[in-house]
C-alpha cells in the first residue's frame, strides 16, 4: 500500500510566540508547564502515516487536539513546526494559490454540524467546491447530480438543507466533499451530531461507499466503538500527542497506558477480534486425489479436518473414526461433512453463533483454504477482557 498522507513532527501552539513554545516542548517541558506560561498546546510532535485507500481514525477525548490535527492538514489552522506531506508534496510550504488548488482538488472536508449554506439548495451545496474552482454551471450541476445519486439524495436536489433531516444533511455534506473528486477526505466528527441509529446507518453507508471509491479518509471521532467499526488503523490522542497507534485488535489487546485502556474496557470485543485471532492450528490430514493419506500431522483431540493437497477442505474425521482410518482402503468414505466454515476475517460476533451448534468450526482464508479451527472455549476466553482473564 502506498502512503498518501504523512505527517511528520507536527506542532501547534495557541499563544503569542509559538516558536518559543515549540522549543520548550522539544526540550522536554510538559503541556502543563507550558500552560503556566500561557501557551495552549494544540499538537505536540504528532507523526502519522496514512496509507492510500484506508480509513485512518483519530480518536481521543474532547480537547485532545483531534480537530486541530484535522484542520492543519488543509491549513485551516497553521501548524507551527513540522511537515505535512500529501503524495510527497509538503503542504506547509504551499503558497496561497497552491493551497487553494490543494483545497479545491486534493483534500476535502466533512464537518460535524454539516456546515451547509442554508440559502442554497442541496444541489448548489453539493457543487460548492466545483463552483469555487470555476467550473461552468452546467458541468458542475451534472457532477453534483451524479454524486447526489450516489448518496441517495437525487430526489432532493432542489430542496433547502432546512427541509432535510440530520442524516440527510450530512449526506449533502458528504456529497459536497466527494464532488470535488479529492482523494483525501477529512471527516471531523462527521457523525457525532447524529442520533445513534442514524449514525450506524451513516457508518454503513460510508463503508459501502469506501468499497467503491477507495478514498484516503482521516476520520476524527471521540467514540472508540466508531473507531473500531470504521477504521483500518486508529491513532489515539491525548493532550495534543498521539499516545498509541495501531489496528483495533492491537490496541484492545495491549493498551499502552491507562488512558487507552479506559477506552477499550467497555467495548464489544466480539466486534474487534476476528476468527484468525482465536483459531488454533488446523493440523489437517491431507488426502491425495485417489484418496490415500498423504500426510497426517495430527496428534490432538477433537475432530480432524481433511484437505486436498491444495488445502481445500474435504470434510472431517470424528475422533472415534481416526483409529479405523489407518486400516481402511477408502479413507474418503469415513469423511463427515457436517461442519461450519468461517472466513479468517469474520468477527467473533459472527463466529459465536456457529459454535452453539455441535458442529466443528473450520477457518478458511480468502481463497477457501483451511487455515485453522475454532473451539468454543477459546472464543469465550477472548471475549472476556484482560483484567478478568488475569484474575
Amino acid at each position, binding site marked *: 500500500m502506498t502512503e498518501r498522507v504523512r505527517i511528520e513532527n507536527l506542532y501547534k501552539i495557541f499563544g503569542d510566540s509559538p516558536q518559543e513554545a515549540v522549543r520548550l516542548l522539544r526540550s522536554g517541558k510538559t503541556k502543563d508547564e507550558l500552560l503556566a506560561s500561557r501557551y495552549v498546546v494544540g499538537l505536540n510532535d504528532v507523526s502519522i502515516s496514512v496509507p492510500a485507500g484506508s480509513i485512518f481514525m483519530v480518536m481521543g477525548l474532547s480537547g485532545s487536539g483531534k480537530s486541530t490535527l484535522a484542520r492543519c492538514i488543509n491549513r*485551516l489552522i497553521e501548524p507551527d513546526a513540522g511537515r505535512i506531506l500529501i503524495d510527497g508534496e509538503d503542504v506547509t510550504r504551499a503558497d496561497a494559490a497552491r493551497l487553494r488548488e490543494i483545497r479545491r482538488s486534493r483534500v476535502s472536508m466533512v464537518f460535524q454540524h454539516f456546515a451547509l449554506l442554508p440559502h442554497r439548495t442541496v444541489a448548489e451545496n453539493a457543487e460548492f467546491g466545483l463552483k469555487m474552482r470555476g467550473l461552468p454551471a452546467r458541468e458542475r450541476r451534472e457532477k453534483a447530480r451524479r454524486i447526489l445519486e450516489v448518496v441517495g439524495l437525487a430526489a432532493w436536489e432542489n430542496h433547502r438543507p432546512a427541509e432535510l433531516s440530520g442524516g440527510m444533511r450530512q449526506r449533502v455534506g458528504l456529497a459536497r466533499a466527494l464532488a470535488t473528486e479529492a482523494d483525501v477526505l477529512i471527516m471531523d466528527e462527521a457523525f457525532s451530531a447524529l442520533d445513534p441509529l442514524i449514525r450506524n446507518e451513516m457508518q454503513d453507508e460510508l463503508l459501502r461507499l469506501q468499497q467503491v471509491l477507495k478514498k484516503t479518509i482521516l476520520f476524527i471521532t471521540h467514540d472508540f466503538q466508531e473507531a473500531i467499526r470504521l477504521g483500518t488503523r486508529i491513532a489515539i490522542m491525548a493532550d495534543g500527542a498521539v499516545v498509541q497507534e495501531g489496528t483495533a485488535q492491537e490496541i484492545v489487546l495491549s493498551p499502552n497506558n491507562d488512558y487507552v485502556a479506559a477506552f477499550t474496557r467497555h467495548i464489544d470485543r466480539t466486534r474487534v477480534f476476528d476468527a484468525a485471532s482465536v483459531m488454533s492450528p488446523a493440523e489437517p490430514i491431507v488426502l491425495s486425489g485417489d484418496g490415500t493419506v498423504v500426510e497426517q500431522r495430527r496428534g490432538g483431540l477433537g475432530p480432524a479436518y481433511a484437505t486436498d493437497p491444495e488445502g481445500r477442505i474435504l470434510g472431517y474425521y470424528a475422533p472415534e473414526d481416526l483409529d479405523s482410518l489407518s486400516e481402511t482402503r477408502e479413507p474418503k468414505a469415513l469423511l463427515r461433512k457436517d461442519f461450519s466454515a468461517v472466513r479468517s476475517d469474520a468477527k467473533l460476533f459472527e463466529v459465536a453463533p456457529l459454535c452453539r451448534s455441535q458442529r466443528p468450526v473450520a477457518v478458511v482464508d480468502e481463497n477457501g483454504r483451511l487455515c485453522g479451527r475454532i473451539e468454543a472455549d477459546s472464543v469465550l476466553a477472548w471475549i472476556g477482557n484482560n483484567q478478568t482473564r488475569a484474575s
Partner: protein
Amino acid sequence: MFDPDNLYVLPLAEWIQVAVRWMAVNLRPLFTTIKWPVESLLGFIQDTFHAVPYPILILLFSLFAWRAATGRIALFTALSLAFIAIIGVWYEAMTTLALIATSIILCVLIGIPTGILCARSDKAWSVIRPILDIMQTTPSFVYLVPVVMLFGVGTVPGAVAVIVVAIPPLIRFTNLGIRMVDREIVEAGIAFGATPRQLLLEVQLPLALPTILGGLNQTVLMAMVMSVIVAMIGAEGLGLVVLQGLGRLDVGRAAVGGIAIVLLAIVLDRITQAMANEQGVQRPSFLSNFVRLLRLRRTDDEEAPIAARAARRGTAVDDA
C-alpha cells in the same frame, strides 16, 4: 464669588471660529468634493419625484412595497401616500422622501463596505468602533453645528447631516452580521478553496444579510427623524412645513406636516422591517433579493432557477 460668569472665560468659541474659517477656506476643494455626489444624486431623485404625476408614483411605491414586503403593507403605503396628497403636502413629502432616499443610497454605498472592512480587520474595527460610539452618543441636533460650518445651509448640507447620523447602525450591523456567521460554515468555505472574495460573496454576505437588513431598518428610521430636524439648517420638505407652522403659530399647518411625517415614517419602517424579517425565514437567494433591492446588478439567471425566478419578479418592478 462662585458665579461662573465671574470666572475667566476660555475663548473656545473664538478658537473654533478661527479653525473652522481656516478649514472652510483651505479645505474647500475637499468639501466640494464631498458635496458633489450628494448634490447630484439628490437633485436627480428630487427632480424625478417631482416630475412624475402623483398617482403614478403612488402606484410605483405600492408595487415596490408589495414586492419588498407584503400586500397589506402595499395597501397601507397606497392609502398613506394618497392621504398625504389629499392634505396638500405631496410636494414637500416628495422632497423629504428624496432626501431620505439619497441619504440611504449613500449610507449603503459607504456603510456596507465600511462594515465589511471592520469585520475583516480587527485593526480597522478598533479604529472605527470608538468613532461610531461617539457618533451614536452625540445628540443628532448637535451634528448641525459642524455641518453648517463646513457645508453651509440648505437641502444638500441637510443630506450630509442625515447621512452622518444614519450611517452608524448600518456599519455596526454589517460588521456584526459578518462576524456572527457560523464559524464552521466559514471554515467550509475556506476548506473548499474559496478566495477571500468568493468567501464574502458566497458565504459571509448572504448569511449576514438578515442582520444587515436589520441595520438598514434602523438607518432608515434615523434618516427619517434627521430629515425633519435638518429643516433647522434650511433643508426643505416636511420638516420645514412643521417649522414654519410653528413659527407662524399656525398649529393646523404644523399638524398637517407632522401627520405626513408620521405616515411616511410608518411606511418606511414597515417596508424595511418586512424585508429584514423575510430574510430571517429562508427564502430563495438572500443575495439575489438583496441585489435586486439595491439595484446593484442583475442575478445570474442560469445559476438557480428558483432564485432567478424570484429575481426576475423583482427586476420587473425595477423596469416598470
